[in-house]
């Protein structure tokens, strides 16, 4: 199976007064057709920057973004417009990503107008169809965003993203701004849409529990680099990188009996401007030694579909 999206050695850096900030530092991954790949990490690790460079909403400084066999990052603006139909994004906060002065019909219809010459009734019908897909009816067409709840607004944002029938949908923390009671509704909708429309998802989140629910594969990012990747089941049940392990141990369980299993990571994320020469995680890691201080660990494959960037990965269960 060839990959739908293939990212190789993606780099984005910012020149600041204090020095060079490497926001994304050599990230490579593939997303196959119909697959959901999750990108997780703390705030500031570069996961949203990856999403925006994929769409070329910000320019990358190195590496390639191949979509369906075409190098997306080298296209000129006119050509890119055509290919961008294949990629779409849903943002985190549906309270700020929808224009409050536009009616739903115009919000969802805008991408259609930009690409095709649909007008009047035909356009309206098309919008109705896309709204129907996300569970909204024709009675919602002439309403404004403020008339909807958070969950419904996120549905509108999803309908807008799907209006051009993209092959890949980038979801940048789509449920972070929602209550848990409606979060599940949006996640179920996404799963359902994926099955019906044969979509691929790049799901960006810091909530590992939602990632486990929706994704097939997961990549853990720390300070601009991927530190571990693999199938969700393997990575979560058997984290190889100390950072992945710490992330999992930081999630409070709803079972009061598991209270003592909460183990916070010590220290803070170091400033990306002053990274130590070796492994970026060394200051917070209890396995760190002189190798970690001197050399940057590369992302190495340790078994089929499983890679980790660590000199001392937790290999306990892999040796059998």
């Amino acid at each position: 199976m060839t990959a739908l999206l293939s990212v190789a050695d993606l780099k984005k850096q910012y020149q600041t007064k204090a020095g060079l900030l490497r926001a994304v530092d050599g990230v490579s991954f593939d997303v196959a057709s119909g697959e959901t790949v999750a990108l997780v990490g703390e705030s500031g690790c570069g996961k949203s920057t990856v999403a925006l460079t994929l769409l070329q909403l910000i320019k990358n400084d190195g590496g390639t973004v191949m979509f369906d066999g075409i190098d997306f990052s080298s296209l000129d603006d006119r050509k890119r417009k055509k290919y961008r139909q294949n990629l779409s994004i849903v943002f985190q906060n549906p309270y700020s990503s929808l224009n409050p002065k536009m009616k739903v019909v115009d919000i969802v219809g805008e991408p259609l107008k930009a690409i095709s010459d649909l007008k009047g009734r035909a356009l309206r019908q098309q919008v109705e169809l896309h709204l129907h897909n996300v569970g909204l009816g024709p009675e919602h067409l002439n309403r404004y965003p403020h008339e909807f709840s958070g969950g419904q607004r996120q549905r509108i944002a999803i309908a807008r993203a799907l209006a051009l029938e993209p092959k890949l949908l980038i979801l940048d923390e789509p449920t972070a701004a929602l209550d848990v009671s409606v979060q599940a509704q949006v996640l179920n909708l996404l799963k359902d849409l994926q099955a019906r429309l044969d979509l691929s998802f790049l799901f960006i989140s810091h909530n590992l529990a939602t990632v486990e629910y929706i994704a097939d594969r997961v990549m853990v990012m720390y300070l601009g680099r991927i530190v571990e990747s693999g199938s969700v089941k393997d990575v979560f049940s058997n984290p190889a990188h100390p950072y992945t392990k710490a992330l999992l141990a930081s999630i409070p369980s709803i079972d009061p009996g598991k209270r003592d299993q909460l183990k916070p990571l010590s220290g803070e994320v170091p400033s990306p401007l002053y990274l130590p020469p070796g492994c970026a995680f060394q200051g917070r890691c209890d396995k760190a030694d002189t190798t970690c201080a001197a050399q940057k660990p590369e992302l190495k494959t340790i078994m089929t579909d499983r890679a980790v960037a660590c000199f001392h990965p937790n290999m306990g269960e892999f040796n059998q």
Partner: protein
Amino acid sequence: MSDTVLSIQDLTVDFCSFERTVHAVRGCSFDVKRGEIMGLVGESGSGKSVTSMAALGLMATSAELSGSVRVNGQEIIGASAAELRAIRGNKISMIFQNPLTALNPFLRVGRQAVDAVCAQGDIRRPEGQARILEAFGEVRLPDPEIAFNKYPHQMSGGQLQRVMIAMALACQPDLLIADEPTTALDVTVQAQIIILLRELAKKVNLSVLFITHDLGVIASLCDRVAVMYAGQIVESGTTEQVLCAPAHPYTTKLMQTVPEIGSLKSELSYIPGQVPDLARPVSGCAFVDRCDMVMDRCRTLAPAVSEIKAGQMVRCHHAATPAQAEKVQIGGLL
């Protein structure tokens, strides 16, 4: 010691405007005892923040309050500005959801924290500074002296929230109100703050009213929990009682919506419908449109609070249905 630090009895808060009156809190009662961490959990719009603001007398003038809020026996509702000033900081401190907006960006954090301590009257600045530096150490800010001279934008969210906690605790209050203090933070930092609050509460016998929408945080931090829905407390009890054997259908449903690592659910459940519009009068139970155990009585009669186990209170007509009956120990149910 089991004396009550905060006692809220039958609190109602209405916001009146020309067009309509929103009944944000509709008869809410609970106590926080000394040394106890009490969780208040609910969806957005359930009235949990309004309740906590009322406890500090921080409501806008458009709000109409009734009922009683007592801090160490002293009534807050109707108290004068001078009386409130003596209570705030001294007896109750508050930390907010977003520490970056709660601090003044133009002033060094140390200066702001010392201001807060010195606002309490007879403390002079050098003494205030010493107290703040000590508090910075207690909340484990690395290098308290360096942190003291930083501006808010030079610190991370987790560090700022530590500054807020230090500032609140340096005033040595009886009660700390924490309004979603970890919601804006990463899970790793959230875990650090949870452990820190747990230790501090034990060390200085502090009472905490912890407001959140995250049941995981409740489970890992709180001694008791109250679940709020549409301006009322629908269930309360010890954390074990409420989370392990929820009696209200809303609590049960809320628990089912939380995705848990390792559970590998194929379909997540959610609560259909929306929180009712609190500007309209609620006849019967407020949860009626979203509940799948509705009876005729639920639509017409507002359920009363019943105690189904020692300390576990539920506001539901179903509190004594056959499924629950074996758990019920006390008579007098609806």
